[in-house]
């Protein structure tokens, strides 16, 4: 009992310019939303997916991130007694002590500076972070050599194999880059790794930042955490996935902020749709009255205008997706407010994000058209049919 879709479709082109402008306005919102969502999900993925469920990350009790945490050697020694710890090939419990500092690098894209995390690690790191795959070779312990994560290498200057990078308190120590590593897309790929003893020396640090303990059984992580948190050690333990998901939640704050802006834009688009649909309704008063005369119900009239708005929104969504596609596959980084270092991520526009944008666009269309459609339904038939 509704009007045919070709009726709606053709009416969109009666006011070509208005329709096109409305499509453009919604398309801008759609494009902004898609870019934002894909940024957000890229950021989330770059951090949130990090970590192994059987890894227990240890920080000092007050710390919120590795970069601000410090663990003294005497405390670190207690960690080898953590119950349930896995044992490495050397017969020692798998505990990776790590120093996390930062260094300034230049972005390839525009030469701007970025704070990259530098992680000093022992061989145990490769056992606990077993997702790491190295191209080239690993640094030799005792040498000023480093390897860089794949994301860091692709985002920043001077991080190719064979390059030398100045590290240390006064940047007085040159490290040669001997390898590039992947880590299953995790945040480690945005870091530079070097021997822990060399980093401790270059940065004149007598303490570590964090420790990662590989457990035999991820199911016994609570028991291990209780030991670390307890009176014997008095440090703070969390499973790696838990730590990184909390970091990734914090990275989403900026996404929510921008989302607020997109919502304001969407509200503007709602008004644009309303304006367009009011013009359409007012221009078609006679036609509406005639359709009502023929026996089309108020519901059919409401539906007609909602469908026209939904058509505008769908076109806008297509245009918005097309406009945002060039962003797909782009690599960017963001500065975490918690770790004070950058994490690289890839912007990927997924079908799910496009679907979300379509829903948002249609919502904008329907909400904008609601009041005009209601006005259309209330058209007084007899009065609208009169001449003049």
């Amino acid at each position, binding site marked *: 009992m509704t009007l045919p879709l070709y*009726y709606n479709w053709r009416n969109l082109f009666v006011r070509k310019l208005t329709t096109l402008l409305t499509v453009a306005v919604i398309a801008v919102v759609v494009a902004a939303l898609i870019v934002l969502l894909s940024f957000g999900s890229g950021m989330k993925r770059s951090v949130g997916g990090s970590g192994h469920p059987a890894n227990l990350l240890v920080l000092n009790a007050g710390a919120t991130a590795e970069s601000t945490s410090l663990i003294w050697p005497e405390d670190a020694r207690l960690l080898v007694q953590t119950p349930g710890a896995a044992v490495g090939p050397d017969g020692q419990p798998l505990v990776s002590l790590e120093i996390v500092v930062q260094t300034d690098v230049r972005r390839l894209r525009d030469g701007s500076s970025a704070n990259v995390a530098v992680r000093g690690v022992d061989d145990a790191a490769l056992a606990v972070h077993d997702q790491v795959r190295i191209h080239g070779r690993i640094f030799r312990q005792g040498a000023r050599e480093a390897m860089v994560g794949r994301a860091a290498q692709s985002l920043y200057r001077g991080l190719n194999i064979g390059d030398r990078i100045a590290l240390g308190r006064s940047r007085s120590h040159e490290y040669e880059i001997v390898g590039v590593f992947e880590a299953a897309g995790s945040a480690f790929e945005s870091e530079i790794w070097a021997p822990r003893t060399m980093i401790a020396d270059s940065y004149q640090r007598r303490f570590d930042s964090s420790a990662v303990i590989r457990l035999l059984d991820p199911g016994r992580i609570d028991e291990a955490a209780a030991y670390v948190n307890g009176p014997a050690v008095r440090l703070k333990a969390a499973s790696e996935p838990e730590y990184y998901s909390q970091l990734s939640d914090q990275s989403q704050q900026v996404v929510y902020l921008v989302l607020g802006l997109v919502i304001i834009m969407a509200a503007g688009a709602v008004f644009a749709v309303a304006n367009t649909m009011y013009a359409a309704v007012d221009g078609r008063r006679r036609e509406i009255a005639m359709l009502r005369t*023929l026996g089309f119900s108020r519901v059919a009239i409401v539906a007609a205008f909602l469908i026209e708005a939904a058509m505008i929104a769908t076109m806008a969504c297509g245009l918005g997706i097309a406009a945002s596609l060039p962003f797909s596959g782009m690599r960017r980084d963001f500065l975490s407010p918690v770790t004070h270092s950058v994490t690289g991520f890839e912007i990927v526009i997924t079908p799910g994000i496009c679907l979300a944008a379509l829903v948002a666009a249609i919502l904008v269309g329907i909400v904008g058209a609601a009041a005009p459609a209601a006005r259309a339904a209330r058209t007084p038939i007899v009065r609208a049919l009169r001449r003049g």
Partner: protein
Amino acid sequence: MGAAGIVLRDVHKAYFKDRLEIPVLAGLNLEIAPGEFAALMGPSGSGKSTLLHLIGGLDTPTRGSVRVGDSQLESMSESALTAWRSRHVGFIFQMYHLVPVLTAAQNVELPLLLFRMASSERKRRVQTALSIVGLGDRTDHRPNQLSGGQEQRVAIARAIVTDPDVLLADEPTGDLDARTSEEILNLLNALNTEFGKTIVMVTHDPRAAGHAGRTLHLDKGVLDREEVNTRRAATASAS
């Protein structure tokens, strides 16, 4: 569907403008037999359109009863009237009121979309209605590609495509030249005589009224006199 009669009893209709009551119809009585072709004349503003709207269920009387066929319109709800209109009446307006973005055939098809009907059946009925009005070859034209007379023919096809009992025409030739008017009037005449439609036609033109079997005169809210067109009545019964 068979033709329906029209009976109005003591019909009052008033409009309110700035809380001021403007009486238009004041105790109007009217009887139109099934299959009759009646013309309705009267001064401008006398309430001819208002009366037609009441008969067609587009408006409801302030007081009094309106019966069309078996339906008592004054007691029906807005949505019941909407559904009733789609089945029982066809409207023809002075300004045609065609949908500009649709072709002639699509305009004629519109009222059929309110019925459960196979699309092939719809197409067949549209074609039939368009050939009755003599536009079988103009089906794909848009209203702006048609002359005024052709537009009115499309509007008539749209009014008859659902095979309603009653046709209500509000100055259907008001915007047409004499020759085209004559063609349209002959068409209405044929719909009345050959298809048995009950027709009420508002007109200013006595020549147009001459095509009807009876002319009713509306003045000061009531039908104050009527005349039977014997010449037309004779041709109608002879055919």
